[in-house]
């Protein structure tokens, strides 16, 4: 297990950071664009679990 973690740590470098942060950034950007829809969806999901 330690070996796996060590191998993964070796694999992570600048070339791996770019796609990862780009995906996260794009998700963040999309959330900002569709903010109302995202909040509406969140409320709908929440209402399924929490009954007022």
């Amino acid at each position, binding site marked *: 297990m330690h070996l796996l973690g060590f191998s993964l740590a070796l694999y992570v470098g600048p070339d791996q950071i770019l796609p990862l942060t780009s995906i996260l*950034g794009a998700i963040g950007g999309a959330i*900002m664009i569709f903010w109302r829809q995202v909040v509406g969806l969140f409320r709908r999901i929440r209402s399924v679990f929490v009954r007022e």
Partner: protein
Amino acid sequence: MSLPRLELAPQPPEPPRRSFGWFILAAGSLALAFGLGEALVSLCLGTRQGILSWKTGNSVKILFAAPAVYLLIFLPAAVPFALLDRTLKQRWSEVAMVFGFTTLFGISVTTLMRPWFSASASVILGLGMASVVSRIYNSDRTRWGLALVSSAPRLAAAALLIGVIGAGSASVVERLTIARLPAVTSSAPNVLLIVMDTQRADHLTPYGYARPTTPRLARLAEEGVRFTRATSPAATTLPSHSSIMTGQLVGEHGAGVNGKLFLDRRFPTLAERMRDSGYLTGGFVANTYWTGRHTGLNRGFVHYEDFYGSLMDGFTRTVMGRAIAYQLFPMFGRVDIPGRKRAEDVNRELLGWLDSRRGRPFFAFLNYFDVHAPYRPPPGWAGRFSSPGDSVARTRRIEIGAWNEGTVPDSAVLAAWRDRYDESLLYLDHEIGALLDSLAARQLLEHTIVIVTADHGESFGEHGTVHHGATLYLEQIHVPLILWGPGRIPAGKWVDRPVDLRAIPATVLEAVGVPTLGFHGRSLFASLDSRDTTGDPALSEGPLVPGNPPTWQTGKGWVKSAVTQRWHLVQLESGDRELYDLRIDPAELHNLAAVPELRDTLTALERALPGTFGGNIAAGSLR
């Protein structure tokens, strides 16, 4: 029955229709705020090496430039929005303007963060930021519209104040640094290190070129020492300059290796040692892509002039300005590097600095960028060696050189490239002469040691390559090297022994009487001694450059090279080797690596090759 919540919410009153002046003032406010924003983000990112890319380096002058460029773009862009507002019944024009300008700003600042965000992520983030801002704006247009125009004077004052403080602080830091320099003897000579970016040796008159490209350098060589077999440690600018400054092999300092596009702080630089010995150290560079302060090559210089050599360069220091200049200008036939700093600009900066900083010996490092692709001699110099045809501009894009596709054009274009290259060199030679004359007029030249060299050569179709950074054949690494200094350097001497530019720090330090500890051991003064028979080969390295054309050797792996008086070995990461006998095959056309009688020679040369890349082949292969 209850009404939906949305209908109960109080709606803000519809603001009055906006005037034309409102649009202009609002655009001005957004330009100043966003311009300052991009400037501050750029400066913050610049504090950490390796974040800003080769095109996005910057200095504190961005505090002035960015608001000005944003004003230049936003003010005319506001006019269509104002006209739309007058013609359309719907009132969405002002929100659209806020949305559009915020999108441009968002894309700009995230583009600066290129190690983290790809181009498409930048666009989505920019649109996201604009969505949030325009949603807030739209929630109360009366209030935000008023705030936008009323803040314009305050933003203008803030931009001016921040710019003045920023620019002034650089001057104060320089003065404080000079005041703390240790004492130095008055007899210590000045040192002028001239690096002609991309200058292959065999196009210079003192190196046997048939065209009279460099009459002034020919005179300098006659009065000094010329090294006929000098090679650069690399075939690209950053690694080569880093070796010139540190005396280390490329694989040791690591600048330009494995995507690390800067010189880190592990090794002392020549400028640091000179500064710590009491010298005024000034760097004046024209290839700002690869020698700007973001590369770390400014370390040790109390004064460094890189960016903002012209108004156009100031324009291209912003993301939007750069996009306009590099994408739009070529469509109208302008294929030169926008804001290229010419030799006369570099000279003016140096002389201006020397005039304002007297009383100490100086170490000045100049990087001239005039012969670099795209080959565009200044007006008046084109056509000196042939007709001033424009075959250089065969494409509608800016061909910076090593970072383009690298396909070899037909022979007519290659011939035109050579003509323009030589004409640019003729201009550069003239300017170097003008600089030396100006130093002489100030009574500085007689106390100055001048070193003229280049960071690498240039291919014009040899070995199936163009530009540089592709291979380590001689056309890409054989560079001029001339030492000159009345009373200190012998006159009229030719040195045929192979040397490489890692020797420069030790040479300069030995010349000015400063210990050479920590730098590459042998100075060039040792090579002047005809009894010296050490025969160390001159070494060069070419790191793998992901993105280089796969037809280039450096597009597939690292390359190493060793040059001796007779032989040139080129070794590739794949294990392929090429051996050339320079006495009978100076063009390196006949590979002798497979000749059994030369096995011992091959083995001896292989042993001499630097082992630095051997340990990081895996890392070097990362793409």
